[in-house]
């Protein structure tokens, strides 16, 4: 006779990714922000194919026209279709955010792991470097770096990436310091594993949730700063249809043609909002200690 022992029947295996995905779906705001971000990605990939007009085509007869059938969002001061420019501009926005976050994650995590794990004089030098990066107030570092690298969108991306490095480095360093004292790391050291293996197999995977939360917030900051630099004329240069540069044009003509300002500003704010909401939602799910903020 077969005896059924319920204790031995384990529930079907569900991966961590699937479990977290279910948690995200339960949070309504995260779902909405994921939808908005998905729309941004679709705009970036397929937008230029579906753009009704050429975003670079100047047509002085159609200057500053309000939204109409031919020009869905109207035209700017040189007669270019604002809707098409916004579709093309979404590519630059997404690219700027991705590269800035990648630079920050790569270098910041590397420096943080080194500083936290090796300690000693290496840690001191890294912390001095981090302190230097943090000693310039909010936008000044990015402005000066962009000026040094030459005003362009590429310099803006690199400058913003460098600006985010200290934030990752500090968080990863404190996480590494905590994890170094954990028992499984002690056990691995005693078993004779070399340092790199310990870092990659034990410490780094435990930092990933922090990195993900920081990345979404950094992405929002990167979009904001790229737009700010474009507005100041230090980021994307004309005729690139970057949303921040479009707001600079919009500022000049807002009194006679508000559509030149409204649409790029709306899309900038919408995307920053989506990434901020997503960041909050992910933080609630992945790091319960940070809840209550």
């Amino acid at each position, binding site marked *: 006779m077969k005896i059924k022992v319920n204790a031995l029947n384990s529930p079907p295996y569900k991966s961590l990714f699937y479990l977290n995905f279910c948690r995200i779906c339960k949070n309504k705001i995260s779902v909405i922000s994921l939808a908005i971000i998905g729309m941004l990605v679709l705009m970036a990939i397929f937008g230029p194919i579906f753009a009704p007009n050429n975003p670079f085509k100047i047509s002085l007869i159609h200057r500053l026209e309000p939204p109409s059938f031919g020009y869905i969002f109207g035209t700017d001061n040189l007669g270019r279709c604002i809707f098409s420019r916004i579709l093309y501009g979404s590519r630059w926005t997404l690219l700027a955010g991705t590269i800035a976050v990648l630079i920050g994650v790569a270098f910041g995590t590397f420096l943080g792991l080194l500083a936290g794990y090796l300690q000693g004089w290496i840690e001191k030098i890294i912390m*001095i470097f981090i*302190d*230097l990066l943090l*000693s*310039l*107030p*909010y*936008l*000044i570092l990015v*402005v*000066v*770096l962009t*000026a*040094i690298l*030459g005003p362009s969108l590429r310099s803006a991306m690199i400058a913003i990436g460098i600006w985010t490095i200290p934030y990752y480095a500090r968080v990863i360093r404190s996480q590494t310091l905590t994890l170094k004292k954990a028992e499984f790391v002690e056990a691995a050291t005693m078993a004779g594993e070399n340092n790199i293996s310990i870092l990659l197999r034990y410490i780094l995977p435990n930092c990933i949730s922090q990195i993900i939360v920081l990345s979404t917030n950094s992405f*929002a900051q990167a979009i*904001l700063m790229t*737009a*700010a630099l474009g*507005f*100041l*004329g*230090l980021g994307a240069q004309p005729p690139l249809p970057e949303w921040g540069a479009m*707001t600079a044009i*919009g*500022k000049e003509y*807002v*009194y006679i043609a*508000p559509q030149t*300002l409204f649409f790029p*500003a709306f899309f*900038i*704010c919408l995307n*920053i*909002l989506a990434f*901020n*909401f997503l960041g*909050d939602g992910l933080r609630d799910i992945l790091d319960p200690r940070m809840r*209550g*903020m």
Partner: protein
Amino acid sequence: MSKLLLFRLVRLLFTLFLLVTLVFIAIRFIPGDPATMMLGASSSKEVLESLRKEFGVDQPLYIQYINFIKNLLKGDLGFSWRSRRNVIKELGNAVPYTLELSIVSMIVASIIAVFFGIISAINQNTFSDNIIRLFVLMGFSIPVFILGIFLIYLFSFKFGWFPISGAGGIKSLILPATTLGLFMSVSLTRLVRVSMLDVLRQNYVIALKAKGLSDYVVIYYHVFRNALIPIVTALGMQFGLSLGGSVITETVFAWPGMGRLLIWSINSRDIPLVQGCVLLFSCGFLLVNFIVDLIYFYVDPRIRALEK
């Protein structure tokens, strides 16, 4: 205790020295020959060379650095290449405007943040709390320049209450200060709410209520004062935010402060002026953070006990 103070002061000076050197080297890499930019590429070679000699850019880098440090210790930051005026004089003209904007906007930000942060904390998870948290999250997503342009459009253009740009009197200060103040109040509101909630969770709050004190006294006298400690430390960060935010705000409102001077000098490749601006920004920021650290040390009795 004074040994700790000395150690911190030495660390501050060391950071300042490293920063000065880094700024010097980095700014020399800004592309564009200043002589050509000023006189045009078609000028004769001798004129360009003589201008470069006057600026000192024909010397090798280490000699430029030694001259720079020597002059810095004498208190001389050089002459602006564009306007030929002393850099310190140029900065001196701009600093009062930036300070005015920073201080007023920090006051505005503090008032908004304390008011809404306290309401949000004591009514946790109710409708008013959720509305305030929603506005805070939305506030994080609106860049300063968009907020500024929107306020100009609404209050200067549509209503005509305030001048569109420029400085001159209280009326022209209101819009830029409100813009920057709103921008800074967002993170501060969140901080006030979190630190109030932290204190409200403590056991001694229940003890105070059990003593029979009214809610009003408990919250505004005891809880708020203890919640102030992390807020005071955040003031240093707020000052940094106000400096950086002033760069954009001054550009939007044509406010003649240091931020606008920095952008202008970068665009004209005026190296001494860029150097002066960046040094002043960072030294001011480091100094304020140092002072806030000291204040934090004196304000929080727990830290003093820890250091002893």
